[in-house]
């Protein structure tokens, strides 16, 4: 009888312990990366932020590209392979639902946000360069890629030409693509002591 009680207590303790452990950020990240989805909420506050909301009256995007990834499709495992292939170091945060990656060779930092299922839902990137030409080229290339994949930008402002950017500090070029289920925003800015390209890609619901 005592043995049965001890086993029962041990089993109950194990269940409780497991219930606690699966909410610890690294474990949640590992589970997500291995296809274990679980519920949407975490009682210990490790859940991801609410999904971004889009304008339902806007058209749908043909695709949701983000620096070579596809929002709503790319998985954590694919990102891990990409990081390995590109010798990029990524640090997991917020229970593995957020990856901070640095590519020192390109002066670029990338932040990748995953949903509870380990699927990519947002990407931000910043790149700093000493010359306007480098940032201008990157801006033009990114704009061309996005336009080819999702269509013409819904908003643009400023000139990304090197002579325009070099003209004065805080000169900025911006291009935006807004759909009901996708948002992309790219900016090239003269920071006075260098030039910065910032990119934001968000999957919208």
């Amino acid at each position, binding site marked *: 009888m005592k043995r049965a009680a001890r086993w029962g207590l041990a089993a109950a303790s194990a269940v409780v312990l497991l219930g606690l452990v699966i909410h610890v950020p690294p474990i949640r990240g590992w589970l997500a990366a291995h296809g274990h989805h679980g519920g949407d909420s975490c009682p210990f506050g490790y859940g991801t*932020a*609410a999904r*971004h909301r889009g304008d339902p009256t806007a058209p749908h995007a043909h695709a949701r590209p983000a620096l070579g990834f596809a929002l709503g499709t790319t998985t954590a495992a694919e990102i891990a392979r990409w990081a390995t292939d590109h010798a990029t170091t990524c640090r997991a945060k*917020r229970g593995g639902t*957020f990856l*901070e990656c640095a590519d020192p060779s390109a002066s670029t*930092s990338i*932040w990748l*946000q995953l949903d509870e299922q380990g699927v990519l839902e*947002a990407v*931000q990137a*910043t790149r*700093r360069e000493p010359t306007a030409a480098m940032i201008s080229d990157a801006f033009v290339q990114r704009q061309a890629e996005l336009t080819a994949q999702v269509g013409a930008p819904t908003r643009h*402002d*400023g*000139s990304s030409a090197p002579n*325009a950017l070099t*003209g*004065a*500090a*805080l*000169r*900025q070029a*911006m291009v935006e693509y807004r759909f009901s289920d996708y948002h992309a925003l790219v*900016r090239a*800015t003269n*920071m*006075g*002591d260098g030039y*910065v390209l*910032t990119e*934001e890609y*968000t999957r919208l619901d």
Partner: protein
Amino acid sequence: MHLISDRIVFITGLCAAAGCGTDDMKAAPQMGTGPGASLRCDSSGKNAWETYGADAFVAVNKSIFNAVGTELGANGDSNVGGSFALIGTGNPPATRDPAPTFEGKLAAFLVYAYGGPTEITYTDGLTYQGEQDMTIAHTGLGITSSQYDYFIGNIVVPALTGNGVAHGMGGSADPDDVASCFAPIVTDPTFKASIVGK
């Protein structure tokens, strides 16, 4: 609606004569002593405060706060860092001001820095001093250079352009007031160094 009131009323007559351009102010803005007081906007030949006035500065300040809130909600601390989320916590001590006080202080600093008076009454009815020590205000926050760049390029510049600050190619024909009378302060290496890495 008088969002910011100039506390030094005797200047009013001088400024009105000079056409400082904030018609809905009880007391019109004055030439200040901040680092941007001597800057000249392409569009007007005057400094930013004289050119745009109180309502625009309030609008820009509120746009900055709204944009930070949106940024934190959408992307967390990935771009702007964790310092904004610490506002009101008191740890580090630079964060002890609650959000409304922080907002008023930022408005006062912007007004002072860009040529306005050293003291304002903000939309909350409270008085704030514009001359502030940026190093003390940012000590312990560990703000990185890239976070600063992101804040300026993706929060501040859109707040300016979104509230009507001219951002053309420069000169009187196509004025670029962002570059001519706002940028020199926030891109100044000494100013940036007073905020980054503290």
